[in-house]
């Protein structure tokens, strides 16, 4: 499905929405549409309910972590250099380093079971990776996003506003970090996971504070 007409159609029907086509250079040719979180629900509803689109089936929801990366680019700069006969203008290679913007991303693969077409790939990006990680949840529109968004919250730490039951799904409730992030560091010991059982709890406290359980040597 070509995205240019779809983009024009969405822009005409949802005033104020900002869309951008993200090109995919690989042979698969699956390009995607970057949507702004403010209009995401309106866009999703339009895609689901418009009679000629009817994307009733949200197949896959993926979280992706894009930490800040350093891009270095070589450019030629004209500089005045001290030569043997006084200052001369010369072309010098200079490396310019830029940082990419750090963000988290969610990718949605939509298909239509009614009309048997697709995929349309939507992407949404958070503002950063630290505390502005809110995105609207698609679970009220497609139930299939339920467990998948919980998984992304669990493993990436994206907060889906409007999700009916946003809890950890694969890790235990007391777990604090987000293991799928690129900069995740494993703890020294997974063994002492806190459980409701007192003995294990004591051992865990002892493990993290260095105290011996029960005061004995």
């Amino acid at each position, binding site marked *: 499905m070509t995205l240019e007409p779809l983009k024009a159609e969405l822009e005409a029907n949802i005033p104020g929405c900002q869309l951008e086509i993200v090109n995919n250079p690989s*042979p*698969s040719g699956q390009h995607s549409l970057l949507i702004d979180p403010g209009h995401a629900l309106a866009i999703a509803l339009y895609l689901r309910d418009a009679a000629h689109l009817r994307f009733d089936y949200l197949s*896959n929801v993926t979280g992706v972590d894009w930490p800040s990366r350093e891009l270095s680019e070589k450019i030629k700069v004209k500089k005045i250099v001290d030569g043997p006969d006084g200052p001369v203008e010369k072309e010098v290679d200079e490396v310019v380093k830029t940082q990419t913007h750090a963000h988290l991303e969610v*990718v949605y*693969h939509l298909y239509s079971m009614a009309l048997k077409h697709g995929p349309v790939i939507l992407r949404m990006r958070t503002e950063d990776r630290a505390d502005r990680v809110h995105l609207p949840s698609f679970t009220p529109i497609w139930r299939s996003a339920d467990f998948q968004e919980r998984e992304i919250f669990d493993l990436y730490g994206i907060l889906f506003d409007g999700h009916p039951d946003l809890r950890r799904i*694969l890790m235990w409730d007391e777990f604090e970090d987000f293991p799928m992030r690129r900069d995740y560091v494993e703890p020294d010991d997974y063994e002492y996971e806190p459980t409701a059982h007192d003995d294990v709890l004591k051992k865990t406290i002892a493990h993290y504070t260095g105290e011996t359980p029960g005061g004995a040597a």
Partner: protein
Amino acid sequence: MSTLTLDPIAAKASLLKKDGGQLLEVSMGPQHPSTHGVFRMDVVLDGENVVKLKPIFGYLHRNHEKIAEDETYLGSMPYTDRLDYFCSITNNWAYALAVESLAGIEVPERAQYIRVITAELTRLQNHASLVGFLMQDMGASGTPLMYAFREREKILDLFESLTGARMMCNYMRFGGCRVDLPTGWLDQAKKVVAAFPKFLDEFENLLVSNEILMARTQGVGIIPAELIVNAGITGPLLRASGVNYDLRKVDKYGIYDRFTFRVPLGDHGDVYDRYMIRILEMRESVKILEQAMRDIPEGPFTDPKTKVRNFRPKPGEAYGRIEAPKGELGFYLISDGSPNPYRYRVRPPSLINLTVLEEMCLNRNIADVVIILGSVDIVMGEVDR
């Protein structure tokens, strides 16, 4: 995962009913034969009726996706076997399909046929063991399961002589398969497939009009067609609810457009329909297998131009999906040009098919929960990843 309520008095108070009765909170699993692995359901019961059910996952979680990001593309191939360990060959195919789409690899003719043959054999043995397990869950202890396993064993023997392993086959490669069919394998496979309808007839004779089976399964665990599409449930469950969506017909991946077969559809979307859909799908798979084994050409079994070592797809992304025995199995890959995938995502049909488990079980008996879960067909290796 979530922990149990710590304060027993507070927990008891929340379960008191207005008429003085009391609800009962039961933790089904993680060690329970009916949950097909380490899976837990937190069930609240009023008498024997289910009033609340929360599935709890994660006991088998090993972060498959993270491990695959630290591994080369080919290095993840054997690990995909461990997702749904009943259907390693279809897992291989879904992953190979995604990588082939990412790197633009063509698959030779013979390899396509081998893929179809092995994948349909996988479907046969998965569905056969599923109906066996379903009967076991229903209390038909032993006999149906052993009948099903007898047939499954023949197919696993075929896999063993082809790939060296019964379950962890690790058979496909980007651009084809790992080895060619050994001499005489096809004849052996033809014999197994030719004998398969006899097993289905026998199974149907014994069970399809069985009174107890009908009483236990008809009208149980119904999902309406609208909800099942919205919840993203795929595979035999979707078709049992009457939605005609089979990726072998829709996407026509591989060479599925060359075979004539039908897509069986159910009417009611209950456990009985799901059981029948599997029986009928096995009959269609036998048809596909007969055609594929008749038409398979000679030729290379893998694309010789595909690099095995130092395989680096160009930056980009691809989503590849197939009709696995349990539903739509997809792999979403993002490449940054390095030998490892930047992002490797599995779309697990087993997990997503559990989305409306609570709706299916509400107001049913606790004994029905067991067969409803059995009819969904989950494998925890894929649910928890």
